[in-house]
């Protein structure tokens, strides 16, 4: 099925790295400004106290140590899900399985933490490893189905997500539920299985370190190893990669497996982290899919992922606080997200860019992708 037209991103042109970075940053910035303008509009139409709501959205996350902690914790988790999506997107596989990997990873970590091993110092590392193996396996499944049979990875990975959610619901209800508790949740994990706190009285824990390590590891794997070069070639130009003798199936399956391991790590970061410290049904609430936005805005570049996560987590926390303190629901953030994705993925240029170029250089080398007068709204 040849439904996806190849996209020329211009990455392979010999251009200064900083020119590209600056251009992408400016595009992302413009997209955020337009999205925020749309948010202002929505808030003014729907809210009784629009000024207060918008100020809460923009300033509240930075107001207290506790809220800063929530923000940093969110950044770490968004970074990992963004990395997982970046990795598969770079190979041009649109697998959306991070949610399922997150749940099976969390389940694996929970079984370790609640076993006798969880009481010892081994609980922490073994929980993480178990989560990553489970997530990797769950990422491997749609990969091998596509490599061997050509089964569409979007559909299969999404179906596996729903299955993982129901599996988690089932196992928590039947096996793991805390005795005497009315809620579908496990007992708190023993302290030896939890991520140690890095900053007292906040949620900032070892997960932040894992997020940074994951960024460096994915960057190194993609840009400093032959595996990464092959992976990017398969993503950019599968035919060329095939002529060059690259085993594209192996690359594809391994990329999806590694991304799955990252998804599993995220599951461990949720349940073994300070935020939960236990497994609850439906604890994730669609969080994994935020990684799609992170990856798209970061253009699948591992080093850009944490930067995007920093900004987006701030908006997310702002929206949560706005939801609590004012009458604007937090879900307004999804409108912002959709606008940002659409604008970043589009090739647009601001009106007047050619005019400014003329003003400064005398002549205007019109960019090929520009659309005359196309202000996206």
């Amino acid at each position, binding site marked *: 099925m040849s439904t996806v*037209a190849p996209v020329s991103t211009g990455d392979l042109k010999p251009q200064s790295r900083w020119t590209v970075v600056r251009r992408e940053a400016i595009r992302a910035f413009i997209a955020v400004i337009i999205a925020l303008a749309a948010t202002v509009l929505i808030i003014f139409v729907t809210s009784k106290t629009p000024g207060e709501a918008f100020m809460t959205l923009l300033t509240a996350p930075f107001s207290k140590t506790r809220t800063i902690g929530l923000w940093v914790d969110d950044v770490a988790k968004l970074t990992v899900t963004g990395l997982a999506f970046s990795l598969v997107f770079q190979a041009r596989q649109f697998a959306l399985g991070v949610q399922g990997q997150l749940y099976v990873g969390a389940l694996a970590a929970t079984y370790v933490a609640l076993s006798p091993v969880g009481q010892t110092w081994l609980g922490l590392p073994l929980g993480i490893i178990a989560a990553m193996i489970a997530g990797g396996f769950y990422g491997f499944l749609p990969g091998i189905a596509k490599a061997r049979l*050509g089964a569409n990875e*979007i559909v299969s990975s999404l*179906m596996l997500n729903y299955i993982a959610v*129901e599996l988690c619901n089932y196992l928590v209800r039947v096996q793991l539920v805390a005795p005497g508790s009315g809620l579908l949740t496990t007992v708190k994990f023993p302290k030896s299985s939890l991520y140690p706190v890095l900053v007292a009285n906040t949620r900032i824990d070892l997960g932040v370190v894992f997020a940074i390590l994951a960024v460096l590891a994915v960057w190194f794997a993609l840009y400093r190893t032959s595996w990464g070069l092959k992976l990017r070639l398969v993503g950019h130009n599968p035919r060329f990669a095939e002529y060059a003798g690259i085993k594209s199936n192996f690359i594809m399956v391994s990329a999806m497996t590694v991304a799955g391991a990252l998804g599993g790590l995220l599951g461990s970061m949720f349940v073994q982290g300070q935020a939960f410290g236990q497994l609850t049904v439906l604890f994730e609430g669609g969080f994994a*899919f935020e990684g799609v936005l992170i990856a798209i805005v970061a253009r699948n570049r591992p080093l850009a992922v944490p930067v995007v996560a920093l900004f987006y987590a701030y908006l997310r926390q702002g929206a949560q606080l706005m939801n609590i303190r004012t009458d604007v629901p937090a879900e307004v953030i999804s409108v912002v997200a959709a606008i940002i*994705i659409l604008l970043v993925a589009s090739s647009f240029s601001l009106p007047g860019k050619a005019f400014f170029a003329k003003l400064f250089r005398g002549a205007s080398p019109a960019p090929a992708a520009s659309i005359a007068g196309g202000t996206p709204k």
Partner: protein
Amino acid sequence: MNELIVTIFSAAFLATVIRTSTPLLLATLGGLIADLSGALNVALDGIMLIGCLTSVIVSAYAPWYVGVLAGMGAGAVVGAIMAFFHLRMKADIIIVGFAIGALATGGTVFALSIATGGDKGTSINLPSKGIPAIDLSFLSSIPGIGPFLTGVFSGHSFLSWVAAFLVFAIWYFLYRTPWGLWLRGVGEYPSAPEAAGIPVNAVRAWSLVVSAALAGLGGAQLAMFNYIGFTANMTAGRGFIALGAVLLGARHPVGVLLAALLFGAFDGLTTVLPGLFGWIPPELIRMIPFVVTIMALVLFSIRAQRALALRGAR
């Protein structure tokens, strides 16, 4: 086991299958149009959700058919937005689909909260209407099989019959009209129709609009007949199952109808099984449609690969 077989072949269960298949069939037909025009519409689920909410809110203040049309219209508008960003702004169609999906999951909850004054879970406080059922009880007068026919075919949504008609209409459009040929040509090999002077981008844009309108119609059926009212994420992945059904149906209207009926049957099974086998955990029963979709996808892919090998295309 006998009870299960008796249940499956009962008129009531077949009627259930028609009911559960209808929203799926409408979305699948939408996916088919987009797929044949060369665009994988991953936003089907989101568009269905938007169709659900729009039809519920509008039908609370207007007659039922206005609600249905509003759901379809909302879908068409989303399709036009997708076409604008994909064709004019050159964004990848799959990424545009992701964006619409993100917009739909959060945006519907946001809009519901605004429309109901703070309710985020359900539209229980909105007096939304249902699509009237079409009564065919006169079929009972046929001797012999009359009562059975009534049981299977009577009391279905108006949209079930529309969907059945659409299968035929879309088949006729695709294989018996020049525009259908254009559409298939654009999806198969865009350079050829372009060289022949066919407006390729217009064909693609209209395909996306129609595809999304059909998904919106599926949403209206879901929220105005299968359930009355809106709940957050009520599509429960039906739009993605529809994507699988397009592939399983070999990208042909009749095949797609059969695939939608198959998935509808397993969806219906999830409502019947708890009553028959109380010992099966409900979570495992709810997994059935997703497991079946994966199995169908794998089996279809094996078959497609064999066909490809037979033709020696590789």
